[in-house]
């Protein structure tokens, strides 16, 4: 399972020549990637009325799984108050990432913010030093650091900085919690997964760790994001009965009235077979009745 968790959705500046999303995704499918995440980059204040601009409803491809991702470019810590679990608008995106631009925001992102990925601008000199202590804290919290390889393919100055910054990051994080993504503006900047593993080896990782960076670590990011969004403090989650598949209906019980109709939410597993037909059962009583 190969993941590419950074495919820019909209061009950053007008000067950037960006390929059609479809061309790039077709190229990814050809290379054997199974999961892609479309990335929407935003600067400025984190607000609570962001709607998900990424539209995947008309791009139904069965070969590849599509996710949505939001990246905030953090310039000032006073703008970050919106990045909390209660912000409903942010929950419409599958993955949440952050790009700090100075030391204070980097420290804030590693210590307190509820995010999945910290993305660093690898194509130019990093404005702050990476320290073992701060990076270690982020790793303990389950946050991943992202290395993007397409800037290295675009031009040679970025290549130098990428190798330098990536080696630094690998040294500081001891090879843990790193993911490699593309950030490709054009289809010709994408590369096959094993080629990326080889690039990882010149950044200081060994081959096994480099392969993990595009497989298991990316999967961890997706699961971390799902846990952050769907569960309450990573313990409890609610699902409506309508989300059950047909071979999971046994969980609800033999009572035919409790089969999903799309309207009511009933779970009468523990109660005897009576004819009660109440429609407005609340979710909390559903929780009591479910198999816990």
């Amino acid at each position, binding site marked *: 399972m190969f993941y590419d968790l950074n495919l820019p959705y909209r061009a950053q500046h007008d000067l950037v020549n960006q390929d059609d999303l479809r061309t790039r995704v077709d190229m990814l499918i050809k290379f054997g990637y199974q999961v892609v995440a479309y990335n929407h980059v935003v600067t400025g204040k984190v607000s609570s009325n962001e709607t998900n601009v990424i539209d995947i409803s008309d791009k139904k491809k069965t070969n590849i799984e599509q996710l949505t991702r939001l990246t905030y470019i953090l310039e000032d810590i006073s703008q970050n108050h919106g990045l909390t679990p209660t912000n409903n608008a942010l929950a419409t995106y599958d993955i949440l990432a952050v790009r700090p631009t100075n030391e204070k925001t980097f420290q804030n992102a590693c210590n307190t913010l509820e995010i999945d990925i910290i993305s660093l601008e690898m194509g130019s000199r990093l404005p702050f030093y990476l320290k073992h202590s701060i990076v270690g804290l982020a790793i303990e919290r389950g946050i991943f650091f992202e290395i993007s390889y397409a800037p290295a*393919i675009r031009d040679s100055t970025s290549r130098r900085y990428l190798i330098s910054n990536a080696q630094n990051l690998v040294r500081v994080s001891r090879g843990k919690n790193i993911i490699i993504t593309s950030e490709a503006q054009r289809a010709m900047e994408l590369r096959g997964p094993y080629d*990326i593993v080889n690039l990882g080896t010149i950044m200081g990782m060994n081959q096994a760790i480099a392969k993990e960076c595009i497989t298991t670590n990316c999967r961890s990011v997706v699961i971390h994001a799902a846990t952050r969004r769907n569960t309450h403090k990573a313990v409890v989650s609610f699902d409506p009965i309508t989300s059950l598949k047909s071979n999971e209906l046994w969980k609800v019980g033999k009572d035919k009235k409790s089969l999903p109709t799309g309207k009511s939410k009933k779970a009468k597993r523990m109660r005897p077979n009576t004819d009660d037909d109440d429609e407005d059962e609340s979710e909390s009583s559903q929780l009591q009745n479910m198999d816990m």
Partner: protein
Amino acid sequence: MVRLKHRWILFETLFENTSHQDTSNDPLTSHDIYITVKESIQLNFGDYGRGCTSSSLNGIYYSPHTNIGLLRVSRDYYRMVWCALTFITQINSRSCIIRVLHVGGTIKQCQKLVIEYDREQLLENEDLNDI
């Protein structure tokens, strides 16, 4: 006995404009690929890289019809050459991507893989034509 051991890198070139190479242009030869790889090593790894690989780097085979090629490198520096291949963005001013399919110790293994790969490609094309 100190033998110089090699690695055979099997790669595929993917061009931007069409899915198959346009035969009206000059078809690419293995020599073109060899020159491009040498330039890429010079650009990315400098004189040191050129020195390490000059004695053993050799472009063995390239077919413009299937876009598959074979390169021989010494075993100690094959990763360097592999990275140089990844950083290539154009051959003969045509935009392309090089994807490495297999790195093997013997040429026979690579040959087996080429046959398998060609067979898969033919079957895919047949399916597409049927539809």
